[in-house]
C-alpha cells in the first residue's frame, strides 16, 4: 500500500510535468500560429476580411511544423507500444528501444 502510494506519487508529478509541456504547450504554439496568421488583419471588429501578411504566414507555418513534430512523436509512441517497443529520450532526442520490464 505505502509502496504503491510512493510509486503513484512519483509517477503522477512526472506525468503532469511532461503532459503540461506537450498537452498545454503544443496547443499554445498552435494558438500562436493562428494569431500570427491573422497578423495585420482580422481584429475581432474587422470588416475587411483581408488575409494576414506574409511574415505572419511564415511564423504560422513554423508553429505548425513544431506542432506536427509533436504529433509525429505521439504517433511514434503509440506505434512503438503496439510493437512491444518504447521510445527513449536518453540521448536527448527520441529513439525507439526495446521495452523495459
Amino acid at each position, binding site marked *: 500500500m505505502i509502496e504503491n502510494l510512493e510509486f503513484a506519487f512519483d509517477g503522477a508529478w512526472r506525468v503532469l510535468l511532461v503532459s503540461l509541456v506537450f498537452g*498545454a504547450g503544443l496547443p499554445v504554439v498552435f494558438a500562436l500560429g493562428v494569431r500570427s496568421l491573422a497578423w495585420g488583419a*482580422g481584429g475581432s471588429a474587422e470588416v475587411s*476580411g483581408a488575409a494576414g501578411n506574409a511574415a505572419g504566414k511564415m511564423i504560422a507555418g513554423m508553429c505548425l511544423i513544431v506542432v506536427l513534430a509533436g504529433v509525429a512523436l505521439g504517433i511514434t509512441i503509440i506505434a512503438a507500444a*503496439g510493437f512491444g517497443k518504447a521510445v527513449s529520450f536518453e540521448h536527448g532526442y527520441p529513439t525507439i528501444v526495446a521495452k523495459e520490464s
Partner: protein
Amino acid sequence: MTAATLILILVIVTALAFDFTNGFHDTGNAMATSVATGALRPKVAVALSAVLNLVGAFLSVEVALTVTNSVIKIQDSSGAPKSDLTANDGYALLLIILAGLVGGIVWNLVTWVIGLPSSSSHALFGGLIGSTIAALGLSGVNWNGDGSELDGVIGKVILPAVASPVIAGVVAAVGTWLIFRVVAGVAERFTETGFRWGQVGSASLVSLAHGTNDAQKTMGVITLALIAGGQWDDTGAVPFWVKLSCALAISAGTYAGGWRVMRTLGKGLVELRSPQGMAAESSSAAVILVSSHFGFALSTTQVVTGSIIGSGVGKPGADVRWGVAGRMAVGWVFTMPAAGLVGAAMWWLGDLLGGYAGPIAIVAVLVAASGFLYFRSTLQPVSADNVNDEWTGTPKAARAKEGAST
C-alpha cells in the same frame, strides 16, 4: 461437443461483445468535443474514430497476455493459466472469465443507458474481480502487488483513477487559459477554422491510442481462454483471427456511436468552443501517451472527463456543470463494485448449474439484460440527430438530480 468446448465458444463470443460495448461506450472520449463544437459532423466523427480504432488495434503486434494479472491471480507471470484451474480443459478458469465479462458488459450497458461516461476497463476488471472472489475467495485478488512496482487493484486501478482526472484537468485548464490569452482579439474566422483542425488532429490521436490499448485487453482475454481450453499454446503470440475479430468488434462498436455518453461528455459538462475542444483533446492525448510511456495504466474515460472539465475551468467566464461531474464521479466509484457484484452472481449461477447448463444460463441472463437495457434506451433515444441539442433537453432524471445537487 463437450461442456468445456461450449464454454470456450461462449467466452469468445462474450469477449467480442464486450469489445463492441467498449467501442461504443468510448467513442465519446475521442469525438465528443469535436461533435459538440461542430468541428466534425456526428457521422463523420464516428467513422473517423472507427477507422483509427481499427488501425490502432492492428498496431498491437505484441499483445501482453498478462492483462488480468494486475488485478486477479488466475495466470502466472508468463501469461499461462494457473495449473490448478486448467483441469477439465480449463472449465473452472473459463467460467470465471465468462462471468467477469458479463459483469463488465452489463455495467457498460447500464452506464450507456443513463449516459454516464465510465471506464470500460474498470468494468471489465470489476467483473473479473467479482467472479474471482466468488470462485477463489478474497485471496484470488491481487490487491496491492508485491511492492516492487505500481501494481494490484490499488496501484493499477484506484490510485490512477484518483490522479488521472486531476492531472488531465490541470493540463487542459492551463492550455485553455493560455490559448484564450494568445488569441484574444483575433477575428473568429481565423480561430474557428484553425482550432477545428487542431481539434480533429488531437481527437484522432486519442482514438488511435484507444484502439491500441483497449482492443489489446480483449485479445489478451480471448487468447488466455484459448490457452486454458487447450486450443493454443504460445504465450508469446496471439492468433491472427483473434486480432482481426477484436479489431473489427471495437471498430464496429465505435462506429455504432455511443451517442448517449457522447452527449453527456460534449454538452453536459461544459458549453465547449473549439479552442477549448482542442485544449481538452490535446491534454487527453498527452496524458494518455505520457502515462503509457511511463508505464501507468490510465482510464481514457477519466482522463477525457478531467480534460473537458479543465477546459471549462480555464476559460474565463465559462461554467462547469459540477452537478453532472459529481454524478460521474459517483458512477466511477460504483463501477468496480457493481460490475463485480454482477460477475460474482453470474459465477454462482454458472457454478450452481454446472456442465452445459451453467454457461448457457449466464449467457441467457446477459441476453435478457441487454435486451431490457436496449429497450430502455429506445424510450429516450439519443442519436446522431439530437446528440448536440441544448443540454436542458436531456432526460428528466438527469436534470432533476443536477438541480438537486446544486
